[in-house]
């Protein structure tokens, strides 16, 4: 068996264990060293992963674990998100109880995401998602002295457990009707399986479980509360890594396992997408807490991404990946600013951001880039993300007129989102009354995080072509996957 395919996962696991042990020996005064070390080493692993050293495509563990263009694409972003999150968490090193464990758990959640990107079996899918979710239960309730953090953790735990229940039941039904849980084997006999109501029900229940992870309506109710209550670096990781992990699995199931069915179900995804966009956009309007707005914004963005899946085309799935790439940088930029402001002022109300333009140029830049890109204004990553996605949806209008509605709703959603994103910026630059205009000191690690995220957002906005090309290759690889081992043997 080819263990070298799992190099990234094994390295990050070892790093996580190392960090956990280091927490025992590093004196309390020097615990920031753990964060520096973890962030640096994940950065090294990231450069190793991007630098062409990543193994060639292949499968391991009897086709359960797969490395292909899509898994490599997402693994890069997961590692990058982890680097930025670890850098941001350094600002919380002195206030979080058990900072070493915080870093270790972040790394273990990263391991779960890496496995999710490569999961090619419903069992591995479930186990990887559980590793992510259970780690996040703890990361969300990490600030035990804040009641909001505990409350967020309990809400996430209860709703997450229900979603896991749906998912495991769906997996059982899929196994019951297909006699296998492997994606390749199911893809090989999808023609007959998609006629079986039992299989369809199982698939639907699995999608429900994934819908919870990506915070799509009607499984979104946890998002605002959890985003508001959890520590800011955790939220940054939840909004990027955890959501992208849900989408990589959804993409793999939708286009790698049952592509024909996805085309049939395109209206289902479309309906979910439309409602999710409207729900996220409309509910964000009256909010006062910036983190809560980010929660609703994350719901709305899940809606846009679902439209890309509904398009059920090569361009659609490539657009979903492009969107996620841009979205991850954008959200990291926004959360870099939010995280520092919340650490400094201990409040996530919009008023805490008042006068940010005068208080810190670094934070104001990161916040502006994040919000403008989220709103989808050129020339930032968020614009091209939405552009490619809506183009894929528009292409589908010819086949199904319902996509015209989706296009309209998406445009309405963008217009509404301008209001709440710019509401935050207005408070930052043109405050009605700013009680405190003292400069905010930005630590050098936070500056590095801001540079990474902002540079990525701007670069993908000016030069989106390279990533689009990679995303298209990844999407194309997904479609041909079922031709791999099992069908070749027949």
């Amino acid at each position: 068996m080819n263990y070298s395919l799992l190099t990234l996962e094994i390295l990050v696991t070892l790093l996580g264990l190392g960090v956990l042990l280091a927490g025992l020996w590093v004196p309390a005064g020097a615990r920031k060293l753990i964060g520096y070390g973890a962030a640096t080493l994940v950065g090294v692993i990231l450069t190793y992963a991007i630098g062409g050293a990543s193994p060639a495509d292949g499968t391991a563990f009897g086709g359960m674990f797969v490395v292909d263009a899509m898994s490599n694409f997402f693994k890069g972003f997961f590692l990058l998100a982890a680097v930025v999150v670890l850098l941001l968490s350094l600002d919380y090193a002195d206030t979080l109880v058990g900072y070493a464990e915080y870093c270790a758990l972040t790394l273990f959640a990263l391991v779960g995401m890496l496995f999710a990107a490569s999961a090619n079996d419903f069992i591995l899918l479930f186990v990887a998602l559980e590793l992510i979710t259970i780690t996040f239960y703890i990361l969300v309730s990490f600030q035990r002295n804040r009641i909001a953090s505990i409350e967020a953790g309990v809400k996430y735990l209860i709703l997450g457990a229900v979603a896991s229940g749906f998912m495991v039941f769906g997996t059982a039904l899929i196994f019951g009707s297909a006699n296998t849980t492997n994606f390749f084997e199911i893809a090989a006999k999808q023609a007959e399986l998609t006629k079986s109501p039992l299989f369809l029900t199982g698939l639907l229940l699995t999608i429900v479980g994934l819908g919870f992870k990506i915070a799509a309506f009607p499984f979104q109710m946890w998002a605002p509360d959890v985003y508001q209550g959890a520590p800011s670096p955790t939220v940054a990781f939840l909004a990027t890594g955890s959501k992208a992990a849900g989408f990589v699995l959804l993409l793999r199931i939708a286009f790698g396992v049952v592509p024909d069915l996805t085309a049939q179900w395109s209206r289902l995804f479309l309906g979910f997408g439309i409602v999710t966009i409207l729900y996220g956009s409309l509910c964000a309007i009256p909010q006062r807490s910036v983190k809560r707005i980010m929660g609703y914004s994350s719901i709305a963005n899940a809606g846009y991404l679902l439209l890309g899946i509904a398009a059920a085309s090569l361009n659609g799935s490539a657009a979903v990946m492009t969107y996620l790439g841009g979205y991850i940088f954008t959200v990291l930029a926004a959360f870099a600013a939010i995280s520092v402001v919340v650490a400094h002022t201990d409040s996530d109300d919009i008023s805490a951001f008042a006068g940010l333009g005068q208080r810190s140029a670094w934070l104001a830049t990161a916040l502006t880039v994040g919000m403008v890109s989220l709103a989808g204004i050129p020339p930032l990553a968020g614009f091209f993300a939405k552009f490619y996605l809506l183009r894929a949806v528009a292409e589908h209008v010819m086949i199904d007129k319902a996509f015209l509605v989706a296009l309209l709703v998406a445009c309405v959603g963008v217009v509404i989102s301008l209001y709440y994103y710019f509401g935050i910026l207005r408070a930052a630059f043109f405050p009605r009354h700013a009680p405190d205009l003292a400069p905010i000191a930005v630590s050098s690690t936070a500056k590095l995080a801001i540079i990474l995220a902002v540079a990525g957002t701007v670069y993908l906005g000016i030069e989106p072509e390279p990533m689009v090309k990679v995303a298209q290759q990844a999407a194309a690889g997904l479609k041909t996957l079922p031709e791999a081992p099992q069908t070749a043997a027949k």
Partner: protein
Amino acid sequence: MPALPDLLFYAFAGLTLLFGFLCVANPLTRNPVTSAMFLVLTICSLAGLFVLLNAFFLAAVQVLVYAGAVMVLFLFVIMLLDLKEEERRQLNKVALGAGSVAVAVIAGILIKAVMSAKPAAEQLVEGTTKPLGRILFTQYLLPFEILSLLLLVAMVGVILLSKKELK
């Protein structure tokens, strides 16, 4: 005349459903301890279903670990809570109605799917410890190893969240 295993299946399945219902919605009492006891009975009937599937090891684990160890912990936790307050709590009628509708719809879909199903799954493994162990360490080695990481995470999390001093 149906065969004995079929009759036993319907008996255990019916008991599982009945005890499960009584566990969450007992019309006679709202005492959490009673609910916990019904959960024990649910788990025991589930163990019966596992035996019918020849999954003897799982059946034993179900009784020993879940009905035994885990439920004792549950009871400890329940005893530490204020039971009176739970009994005084009013039922939310709207939530109850919405929940019933959701349950009815999901049950409808499931019943329709199960009724029309032709099960394809064959018994892959003998349900005793040796074949089970073999399959865990060959075919399902990767998920099994990831689960060990998951247990480590859960352990670290429990210690962190329940540690006494906040420093």
